[in-house]
């Protein structure tokens, strides 16, 4: 779901998905596009809509033939209704013939747009063993991989930089600890926090960067111990860009107390 200035936009998931628009004032849903192939990760930026589709040209997917196996398409729809492909990237879609494998985590779509800034979209791709983060120019053009990390990882855009989680370098591989990495500095990616319990999500309220895992942590800008803010019953957090919302803390999303510095 994405919020526009005068409407709410909804993606219907599935092999034949659809993009719907519901006026903010109420009324019937309008179908903006249908027959979308596994759409996910809807984002509204100004009057433009962005989402991803996972397509399989020709209907038969050989996942190891990247040009004709599952392909992630990052789509854009302008206010005038014209939709176009911004970028394509080798993706992964478990075949129907496959057993439900460990790679099939129903909570995680094959691709979703995690964040946007003035020039780029930040897309997360879920592969069988790893997570890839790619940057896609909003104007169109070649996508560029930011990182590929083992396991299911999360990322967020914060103060002009993209941050993502990755397996800990300091803990043993099976310890279940993750670290937070920042890109965008001159000397390449930089670890800014270590020893966080896996299973959490990164969120930004525009002021601070947070990791919502077993506890809510405030993540520093440079490598330092993250500040523990409060215990969480569920490691879920979201942000509308201004507030940090904790999900699962009650029937309604709860604004994190003490999250603002």
């Amino acid at each position, binding site marked *: 779901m994405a919020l526009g200035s005068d409407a709410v936009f909804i993606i219907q998931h599935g092999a034949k998905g659809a993009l719907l628009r519901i006026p903010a004032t109420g009324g019937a849903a309008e179908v903006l596009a249908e027959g979308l192939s596994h759409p996910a990760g809807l984002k509204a930026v100004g009057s433009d809509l962005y989402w991803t589709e996972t397509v399989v040209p020709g209907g038969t997917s050989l996942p190891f033939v990247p040009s004709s196996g599952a392909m992630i398409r990052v789509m854009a729809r302008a206010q005038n209704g014209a939709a176009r492909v911004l970028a394509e990237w080798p993706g992964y879609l478990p075949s129907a013939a496959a057993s439900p494998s460990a790679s099939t985590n129903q909570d995680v779509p094959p691709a979703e747009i995690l964040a946007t800034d003035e020039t780029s979209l930040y897309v997360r791709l879920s592969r069988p063993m790893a997570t890839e983060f790619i940057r896609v120019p909003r104007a169109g053009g070649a996508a560029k991989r930011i990182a590929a990390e*083992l396991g299911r990882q999360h990322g967020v855009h914060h103060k002009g930089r993209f941050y993502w989680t990755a397996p800990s370098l300091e803990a043993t591989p099976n310890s279940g600890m993750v670290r937070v990495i920042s890109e965008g500095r001159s000397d390449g990616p930089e670890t800014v926090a270590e020893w966080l319990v896996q299973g959490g999500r990164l969120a930004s309220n525009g002021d601070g960067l947070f990791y919502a895992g077993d506890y809510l942590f405030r993540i520093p800008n440079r490598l330092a111990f993250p500040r523990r803010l409060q215990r969480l019953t569920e490691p879920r957090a979201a942000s509308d860009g201004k507030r940090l919302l904790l999900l699962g803390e009650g029937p309604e999303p709860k604004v994190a107390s003490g999250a603002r510095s």
Partner: protein
Amino acid sequence: MMGRQVSPRAVAVVTIVLLGIIQFAYWRLLVYREPGPPPRGGGGGPIPTAPPTVVGRTDVTVETLAGSEPGFQDGATWQARFCGPNALALAPDGALLVSDSRNHRIRRIGPDGQVTTLVGASEPDGPGGSSLGPAESTQLCYPSGVAVAPDNSILISDTGNHRILRLQSGQVTLVAEGGAGKPLRSPGPIAVGPVGEIWVRQADGSVRQVSSNGLVVAPSSVPPSVRAALGEAGEPIGAVMTASPDGNGVAEPTSFRIGTRGPAVGSGEIRIVPDVTHHVLLAENTGGSLLLAGRRTEKVSILGMDDGTGARASFAGPCAALVAPGGLAYVADYEGHRIRRVRLPQWLVDGGAAPVTGSRVNRNMRRRFGRNDRGG
């Protein structure tokens, strides 16, 4: 008045106990965290997994020959990086040729352990390109097949450009070209037939034969050896005889459906086949299939990049296998971005390398692994 004498031993015991209590309290209150719930929505965590019920054999060893995180780097095998390797071939000089698909290159792993780029100049992990000429400047687009022709030239399936190329004397030339509405479209695994003819399997599963003058035809029939070398899409056969959960292969055979089989080249009657769907490595002959390496439950594949015995090893995306002299096999692990080396047991090498009769091989398999459970 003298105080009571306190035993030094008692003091030491009490001190140790107190220190233990303090240490435990420190750990419990300040360090210990209850295990977090499983990842929801994909936030920082491992791939969910399950304990295996079926594993490969302990007399098979799997190790990583080259590759680690996805990327592009030549050099020694321990520092080289690949991105989506998906096809293998053995050069006459013993080098391993790798179709490094997402880097748009053909790489060479020499017998000296050095990884070099043979063909390709497109931006690694970019959209690919299209050109011909000197090997070092030729641009490919997601190559997905490589083979060695009888004249020692190297054939390449340039999948994204819908063309078959030949590398000879440092020059890349066009063998056949297709595209939309043409008979050749998205050629993938490639093999050379008994009389030097070129066969390719396309991404939609169909097979094409390419003549030396570039003529592409849809053959009325495909020899079984060629079909095996190209892999088979879909759900070709039924049950598989497999090793036991403890990996020694002498317990009750277990059956599960075989999924899409990747390209395999075998010697003799036994072929080494990656099961692309189920992420395991099989040995096949006319009598059945045997799980060599990989882990799975009845319904769930267990993905990983663990090295070790066949019972411990796991694969992220095995998609092509190749049998080499010396009891070795190689596997292109597409999702693991690695080339894996498999040391085969001697009995399998003996049975496969020598042109023995099928009955002998079958007897060998039955004696070691129980009844043949094919056909379920």
